[in-house]
């Protein structure tokens, strides 16, 4: 939002042209260079984890824990990457996630699932997420309401609706076909991690290899140019917010599988974590540039950070102070790295 983020400003020390040449020499795309810094931050964090936690940190089991924890946030972050790439924001993902877990685990849904299989619960979660996303999209694209306000309103409203439906109770999932399908491991890797992987790969292709992705970047980079090139900008925004809602629904299914419970408190404050991961990953808040790989690394950084803290049994207040400092340090490191690697 502030000028520092605009890559297009011909700011004094921005060696655009120069950078390009050295980059092409290395055969690296701009996104790759930016991601290198992030990987460095993640590796540094892992090193700290290993030095302080030893085998408790550096084990396959722990890796799976970190990945599992990253999965729910990660799936939403993929959808959020698209939203932020258009220059928008979706504050409602956390509460929509909560709503989908509640709706998909009501007595009625679970009873129907007993009859027709888990598809009912999954379908319910996805539909609810999609619907919430599309409502956001309509309000933003066709109502011209600033995304921040529209999705903040959805945040509040979806939470209220979830409370109404759940009657403020936690709904336990005991639908066996759902549990057997989504809980546990596959080839030694938790199923929800597989889902995250699939969504991430699909998201990467969608953003980088399809017209949908190209249009997303165009809408965020220069909406007027996109319009003049014949893109239906409003409809595209609608789709993108729908997509974000859909990923919230997928994440809802994953959370249901992982916690075995639907609750209106699910996803509380998740939005900030998700946005932070996406932005730390290198997607620009002003729009026009998005990176799925960066987002995945961003999510992993946050999950690893939590893991390292708990393994070291650090007081939660101290954790928070350290967390703030480390996030800033990671971003600074990333910048430094990007600058150095190109000189």
């Amino acid at each position, binding site marked *: 939002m502030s000028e520092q983020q605009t*890559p297009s400003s011909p700011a004094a020390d921005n060696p655009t042209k120069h950078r390009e040449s050295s980059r092409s020499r290395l055969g690296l795309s701009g996104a790759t260079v930016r991601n290198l810094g992030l990987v460095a931050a993640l590796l540094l964090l892992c090193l700290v984890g290993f030095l302080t936690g030893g085998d408790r940190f550096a084990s396959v089991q722990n890796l799976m824990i970190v990945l599992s924890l990253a999965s729910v946030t990660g799936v939403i972050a993929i959808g959020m990457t698209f939203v932020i790439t258009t220059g928008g924001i979706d504050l409602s993902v956390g509460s929509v996630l909560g709503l989908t877990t509640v709706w998909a685990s009501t007595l009625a849904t679970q009873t129907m699932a007993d009859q027709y299989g888990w598809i009912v619960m999954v379908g319910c979660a996805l539909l609810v997420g999609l619907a919430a996303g599309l409502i956001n999209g309509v309000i933003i694209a066709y109502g011209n309401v600033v995304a921040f306000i529209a999705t903040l309103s959805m945040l509040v409203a979806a939470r209220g609706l979830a409370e109404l439906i759940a009657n403020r109770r936690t709904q336990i999932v005991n639908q066996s076909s759902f549990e057997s399908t989504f809980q546990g491991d596959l080839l030694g890797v938790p199923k929800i991690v597989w889902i995250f992987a699939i969504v991430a790969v699909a998201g990467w292709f969608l953003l980088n290899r*399809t017209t949908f992705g190209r249009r997303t970047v165009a809408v965020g980079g220069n909406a007027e140019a996109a319009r003049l090139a014949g893109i239906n900008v409003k409809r595209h925004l609608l789709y993108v917010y729908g997509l974000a809602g859909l990923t919230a629904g997928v994440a809802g299914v994953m959370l249901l599988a992982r916690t075995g419970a639907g609750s209106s408190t699910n996803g509380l404050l998740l939005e900030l974590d998700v946005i932070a991961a996406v932005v730390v990953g290198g997607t620009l808040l002003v729009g*026009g540039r998005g990176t799925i790989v960066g987002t995945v690394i961003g999510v992993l950084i946050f999950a690893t950070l939590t893991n390292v803290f708990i393994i070291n049994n650090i007081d939660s207040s101290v954790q928070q102070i350290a967390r703030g400092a480390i996030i800033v340090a990671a971003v600074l490191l990333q910048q430094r790295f990007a600058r150095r690697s190109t000189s």
Partner: protein
Amino acid sequence: MVTEDPAAPLLQMQGIVKHFPGAKALDGVDLDVLPGEVHCLLGQNGAGKSTLIKVLAGAHQPTAGTILMDGQEIQISHPVAALEHGVATMYQELDVVDGLTVAENIYLGHELASAGFTQRRTVASRTRELMARLGHPEIPPHREVGELSAAGKQIVSMARALSRDARVIVMDEPSAVLDSGEVDNLFRVVDELTSQGVAIVYISHRLEEIRRIGDRITVLKDGVTVGRNLDVADTPTDELIKLMTGKNVEYAFPERPGVPQDAPVRLEVTDLSLSGVFSDVSLSIRAGEIVGLAGLVGSGRSEILETIYGARRATHGRVQLDGKSLRRGSVGAAVAADIGLAPEERKSQGLLLDEPVYRNVTLSSFARIARGGWLDERAEKAAATEQAAALDLRPAGVDRAIRTLSGGNQQKAMLARWLVHGCEVLLLDEPTRGVDVGARSEIYDLVRRLADAGTAVLVVSSEIPEVLGLADRVLVISDGQVVHSGPAESIDEHQVLDMVMEGSAA
């Protein structure tokens, strides 16, 4: 070049009216375009040229009027409809997306895709072909457009129009950001297209270009057609200018009174370098002198100006004003020492588009206008109004948002900023880019008047005649090096071009 029966126009626009809420941009404009011709659209800044072609492109909906293609009335209700009817447009405002690659920009909106997946290889090879056709095989399809210069972006925009296989290509001031070599390239492609029967609608403020490629001319003034289908060969320049401006404009550079030998040196630049861009630039400007920098696009002229001004931190060298060294890399210090810069890209580097004119004008003069941090809006407006009047700013009111001014008037407002401030040294980067003939000579006069009053002026322009005509002394820059320095009278356009080319070949 007109290959078909002139009686059968390809495209006709009749009685086009476009009202913006509160303003009439077009008030009944007609335009006939024949197949295979280059039809030039002329008019002052704000005459309505861009608005007209935006109506044609489906970007604006006309309030009234009809558009005919091959004699059939058509509706262009959105940009896609225009493209479907074979009308492709290069807009005046660069309409590329920085975050996408060259190839992606060219095929934006008509991506080659199977089942939604872009066919990257096909797209890349076609892009390579297009770039080669435009004389720029060195621009790779996968390069991010944000990393290209303004000229590069214009070429991408051109390639996009070509990729549409259009029957009519509209070019809104394509040459404004191009240097002479690029313009030659552009014209070669235009010739190629017209020989295939494609019609070109060409907008430019450079009359000599129109002489070179134009077939017929339509002149707009204040949103109405004042000259219709004039033949380029038969219409003298005076008449065109008279049609556009409604008066006789002396299209000449102001007299050079000559700088007295004893005039003090105002600005002294010694061995200034910016690593990777230019090196060891030395120059000095005396009070009352205008020095011009000539060179190709990308030769580093803008960077020299910005480095002198402190907007970029020099890696080496020194800038002195009246014998006192300036702090390196500090715009604040330069402004405080009364150095002003009118940057190259008005919109992105100079203006606060949504703010009123007077606030744009006083932005650098708070030290003069504010007392203890408190602003006196009345004093501000008075100061701005005074300079607006001196520059003949139109419309004269300083309360309107500067966005609503035409390009030439925005440029005048930039100059007014430094007039209010009162400058010892004025650095002008492309001061007449996109400015119409009338305003252009007013700006020349103004610069000369400032110099006569003792200001030292450094001008960068891609139009070599402008540099030669306006400046007392000319420095030729090639590849970040000063390759020539001498009085403007002692050198002509061809010599400059030779030096420039030689330097870049070396």
